């Protein structure tokens, strides 16, 4: 997926183009409780360090909330 496709420039375009329907339709079949979580990496906002989620869950459970301004 490219940058422009993931980061829709307009919300009504995201809806009108069917991107929203596609993403929401896929959710019920996605990763479920009981399965192994995919390891992911994020950039720590405070210091720019690259943090793998597995580096946290190998020590303790972790709660991950995904979000933005809205």
């Amino acid at each position, binding site marked *: 997926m490219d940058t422009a496709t993931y980061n829709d420039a307009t919300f009504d375009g995201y809806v009108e183009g069917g991107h929203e329907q596609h993403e929401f339709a896929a959710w019920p079949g996605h*990763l479920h*409780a009981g*399965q*192994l979580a995919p390891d992911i990496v994020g950039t720590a906002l405070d210091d720019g360090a690259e943090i793998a989620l597995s580096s946290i869950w190998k020590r303790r459970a972790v709660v991950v909330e995904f979000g933005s301004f809205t």
Partner: protein
Amino acid sequence: MYTREAHPGEHVGHHTSFDVKLANAALLRDEIGIRRPILVDDLVGTAHRAYGAMPNMTWVIGRGGRVLYRADWTSAANVEAFLERHERGRQRRPPSGSVAPYLSEQIEYRDVDRDAFDERLRRNGPRSYDEFKRAEQLWADRR
């Protein structure tokens, strides 16, 4: 995990570079006063999409990396209740001597504050509000 701006506007726009994404994440942290550690996803949403790409989802992952909880919307009260219930259940020792995990699935309810949501849309910019209104019309036309 900071993802993408679902409702971009004139003031908080969509991400066109990683520097823009970092700046928007810092703005969110400072305006809302978030004290939890924030990780920023890459520009194409690799982490977000790996977990299903829902806009406000929450996951609990147990020690060792197994998914314990998934929700397509975030309710802090629900997550807290789950964590307490899960830990209590895991440590319980019934007369039989052992416990076993099982899967469950529920429909939950969350608060909807449309005024607050509209305010956040306007914070992103006037076109963010206008585009959401148009999206609502598109949803209505599909029904």
